[in-house]
């Protein structure tokens, strides 16, 4: 596998890990309580 192939594989792995982190971060944080306890219009999705 050439350098381009390795970079592309790294990008794919990083994309999957980043997407999983974004989705799973919501499960470890009590988002419902945060959203209910803040006056901010910008809060993580429940």
């Amino acid at each position: 596998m050439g350098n381009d192939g390795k970079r592309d594989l790294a990008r794919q792995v990083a994309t999957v890990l980043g997407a999983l982190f974004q989705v799973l971060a919501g499960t470890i944080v009590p988002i419902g309580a945060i959203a209910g306890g803040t006056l901010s219009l910008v809060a993580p999705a429940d």
Partner: protein
Amino acid sequence: MLQRVGWFFVGAFFLSGLWEVLVLLRQPVVLQAILAGIFACLAVAYLRLVRSEHSVLRRADRWLVALPLGLLFGWITAANAGSINDTLVELELLGSGVSGALVGALLLFAGAALASAVISVSKAGPLQGLLAYAGAVLWALVGVVVNQYNASLLTTGAALLSAALVAMAVISTLRGGRPYIGASRSVRPRAAGEGG
């Protein structure tokens, strides 16, 4: 296409996850900086997408890359505009009275102006990205109207005017020159509809 925008997606994903976790800390400056970082990642990705040669955009790129990228970028555009106001209030640099509402209204207008500029630039890119972006911004502004309808007439009015500005930008862009839809529609006849 993903090689051009993929790393910026990665940055946006990680920062979004980080933002969700760090919301617990209630550190407005840190949270605002993260939102700005997400915006920067998605802005670069979106600009690289719309400036891509049409010939490299396949159907999958238009539906599976441009559409979600536009949606996410639209959300973060609106989120930044709303969050800056919240940050200023939490830092007690801004009151929650009329002056706060005025600044909030100005930030909404600034966000709408930025969104209109993005929509104008999107003319060169795929239609899916443009419509997803505009839809997300409009949806966020509707959310502001619903949230603030009973609380602030000024904020509600500013959100409605901002939504009108964004809608006009979409109409103007679509009428001024058809965005790229697909390979068979990528060339707009220059003489069509023009006098002479």
